[in-house]
């Protein structure tokens, strides 16, 4: 019997388990864990409904540090477990924590399919562009030329852009943030509010094997000019002086950075963010220096029916239409004979 116990509002610490956190000191995952623990008390969900699912890797230890239901599964397959959980009990609030290797290398196939199916869950991708737990090999998101134990002369792999992959797979919600971002819980709340698969890419620093890999975007002195925080309905403006903007070059069908007040550019020329526009979202997701800033915030949110809803409605329809009230009755339908 599940009894709803009226409780006072939980606090972030109520979501911390009694297990000692064992990430390296200074790992970006600590900040992400805190951000999640700050998010959950504000959601209107009973604690026992939360399920955290993960695969294998540093970030996949996440469920052990939450005091919710948690399932630490096998490498790359968390989306498949999460899908089974959500189809079985659509009332559960499913969160999936993965990394760039877990989610986009060994688990790339499952990521593709969970996104296109639109199973209602939040996927938190801790992207540190490196394999941490196996001691520092290059990952599918590592930059070309990265020297690691498995690429001593530099990686020759072309890096994958997770959000572009997600949009190409049919994702209905993609967002981006970074580990120490103050308003990361707000991004998580948006992801949670979206019914369907919500993918949040979190740029996460690996202090041991890939330290400062995002400094060209996140360092305090460059942040204003290298990041753009997108908001639905607002012009795509950024920069220290808030005078840089993103414009669509209609001849090349590409985005470009312009400065308001220069060369006759006015705010009218700047694109307004429309988070339901997939083409725009894809171009924003692609932006990755050196001339264009990295887009942060909700790049795309365009809800559609969820997978588990479709399953439930087919189940209800089959029950309503069934000619046999029981399996016993079904076995006696069709060709039978008495001896």
């Amino acid at each position, binding site marked *: 019997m599940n009894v709803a116990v009226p409780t006072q509002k939980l606090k972030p610490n109520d979501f911390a388990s009694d297990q000692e956190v064992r990430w390296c000191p200074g790992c970006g995952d600590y900040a992400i864990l805190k951000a999640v623990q700050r998010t959950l008390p504000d959601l209107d969900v*009973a604690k*026992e409904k939360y399920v955290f699912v993960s695969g294998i890797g540093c970030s996949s230890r996440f469920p052990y540090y939450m005091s919710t239901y948690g399932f*630490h599964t096998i490498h790359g397959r968390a*989306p498949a*477990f999460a899908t089974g959980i959500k*189809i079985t009990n659509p009332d559960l609030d499913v969160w999936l924590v993965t990394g760039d290797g877990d989610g986009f290398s060994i688990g790339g196939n499952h990521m593709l399919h969970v996104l296109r199916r639109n199973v209602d869950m939040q996927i938190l991708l801790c992207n540190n562009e490196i394999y941490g737990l196996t001691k520092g090999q290059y990952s599918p998101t590592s930059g070309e030329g990265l020297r690691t134990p498995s690429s001593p002369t530099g990686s020759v792999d072309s890096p994958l852009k997770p959000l572009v992959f997600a949009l190409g797979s049919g994702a209905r919600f993609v967002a981006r943030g970074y580990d120490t971002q103050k308003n990361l819980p707000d991004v998580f709340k948006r992801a949670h509010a979206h019914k369907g698969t919500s993918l949040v890419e979190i740029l996460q620093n690996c202090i041991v094997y890939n330290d400062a890999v995002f400094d060209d975007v996140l360092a305090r002195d460059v942040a204003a000019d290298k990041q753009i925080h997108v908001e639905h309905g607002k012009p795509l403006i950024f920069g220290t002086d808030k005078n840089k903007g993103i414009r669509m070059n209609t001849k090349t069908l590409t985005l470009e950075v312009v400065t308001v007040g220069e060369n006759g550019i006015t705010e009218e020329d700047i694109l307004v963010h429309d988070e339901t526009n997939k083409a725009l979202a894809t171009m924003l997701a692609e932006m990755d220096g050196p001339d264009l800033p990295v887009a942060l915030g909700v790049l795309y949110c365009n809800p559609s029916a969820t997978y588990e809803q479709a399953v439930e409605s087919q189940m209800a329809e089959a029950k309503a239409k069934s000619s046999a009230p029981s399996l016993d009755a079904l076995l006696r339908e069709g060709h039978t004979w008495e*001896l």
Partner: protein
Amino acid sequence: MNELNIKADSVADNRTAVPSVVIRFAGDSGDGIQITGSRFTDTTALAGNDLATFPDFPAEIRAPVGTTFGVSAFQINFGARSIETHGDEPDVLVALNPAALMVNIARLRKGGSIIVDTGSFNARNLKKAGYETNPLEDGSLDGYKILEVDVSKNVLEAVKEFGLSQKEGLRCKNFWVLGLVYWIYGRDRKDTIDWLRAKFAKRPDIADANIAALNAGHIFGEAAELSDSVGLFSVGKAEMKPGLYRTVTGGEALAWGLVAGSQLAGLEAFFGSYPITPASPILHSLAKLKQFGVKTFQAEDEIAAICSAIGASYAGALGITSSSGPGIALKGEAIGLAISTELPLVIVNSQRAGPSTGLPTKTEQSDLYQSVYGRNGDAPLVVLAAHGPSDCFEVAIEACRLATKYMTPVMLLTDGYIGNAAEPWLIPTIADREPFTVEQRTDPEGYEPFNRNPETLARPWAVPGTPGLEHRIGGIEKADGSGHISYEPANHQTMTDLRRNKILGIARDIPEQKPEQGESTGKLAVIGWGSTYGPISRAVSNKLKEGKSVAQIHLRHLWPLPANLGDLLKGYDTVIVPEMNDGQLKTVLRDQYLIDARPVTKVTGQPFKITEIEDAIDFALEN
């Protein structure tokens, strides 16, 4: 359609009564051979015969017409006595083209009958089949009784009033032949006609044409003097337990058994699967059973299929997955997780010939090692095997019972032969069965994820959504009791012991092994598992009739083995193990009991013949 009212039996005074007959229908894979076989099966069952069937079709969906590798066949053994196998040697071969004759003639009993469609024996088809001369003319079929009919011409004549194209008309060939065979065995056409009407309810012209073909074949038989060539026969009703029957394939019985098992456990069933030959029919069957709360999920691959099922079990349903050997190999890591997290799971393996892709449509039982041993680490689980189509129902229920009672994955072995073969089935009543309702944990008092039931050693099943039982599980070794991550050396020993003892303890919860037939001590035990049941059973009963000291032992529980099996086997001078692999159960028996179990193996993709087992029995008794 007055002829329908004529009861064939009543006009056939010149029929020879025979106890059983084996017919093999063969033709191009586009000729509708499997439909012909299944219609003949239903009619045979309605006539009160016992029967066993063997659909034998190519891996190619539509191989080039007329080639030997495009030949599809369906064999049925039916009789007025108990039927255990689809028959060693057909008495009758129906060959709708030269390739079908080429591929199947060697199987036919010496002196058996052949019905051929001469319309398809043209130079082109003969060449495609690899004949240099026409076997109907060169004397190579001397010694057989041959009925040569231009089926193609006859069928086109019979259906011409329906305005079908020549191609559509020729598609009715199989029903023309079926009509003829029905006449030969004095069978009623009504059931087939009803089936055609229902099947082609939206194309009454196609239904009418096939019915006309069926009737024309029958009329042809009535007019021809068949008693001088292939003969006319009657096969009486078999002695069978009274009750309501239907025919069932292994695939259907398994699907229904899984639903029945989940209902008896009081759980919803979740079936995650990925299409693979020959396991797909289970997915197809279960996808049609949504009204009973069965959720089916066609996953993106084999791994996702099992992972979704484990996720479903974690969330409180009975997770089930299904595949064949190559797919089971892909699932191996996830099976290990289910063992480590001690979640219930049913894994169905419809075995096929391997290794690798092997022979996808051919039967084999060579995944026993994979089932018992095939994972990293010490990873014990329960292994069960079904021995025939209807037995799949019982074994599926047993799999659900053990998976939920012991919080363990259960591997259920069937094979391509069992899955596709059909037999008459005394329909069970699920409402009369004793439920084994699962109690999921709800009480937070004293809850620990790995605090075990002292009797079964099963851990409590606490399902997300239950207040106060929030906990974490995963594939890292867990501390006994608390379930927290533990790298303690002694704890890993403890947990490994517990996982082993939990599974071995199930031997106390399964029936003692008894011989199927013969005495419980003696000169020779023939021990088998799975689909070799039919030929072993018949061979042993034949030898018992000859007065030989032989017994049949057939295993349903392959891991853990029945508690008394070692003692039982030690009561025989010799133990032989017929199996369709290179000697896998033999190895397990030697390992477990240090006995000289002797292999009798066959891996041709074809089931054992009764005579092969009889020969093995004779050899073992003489040596």
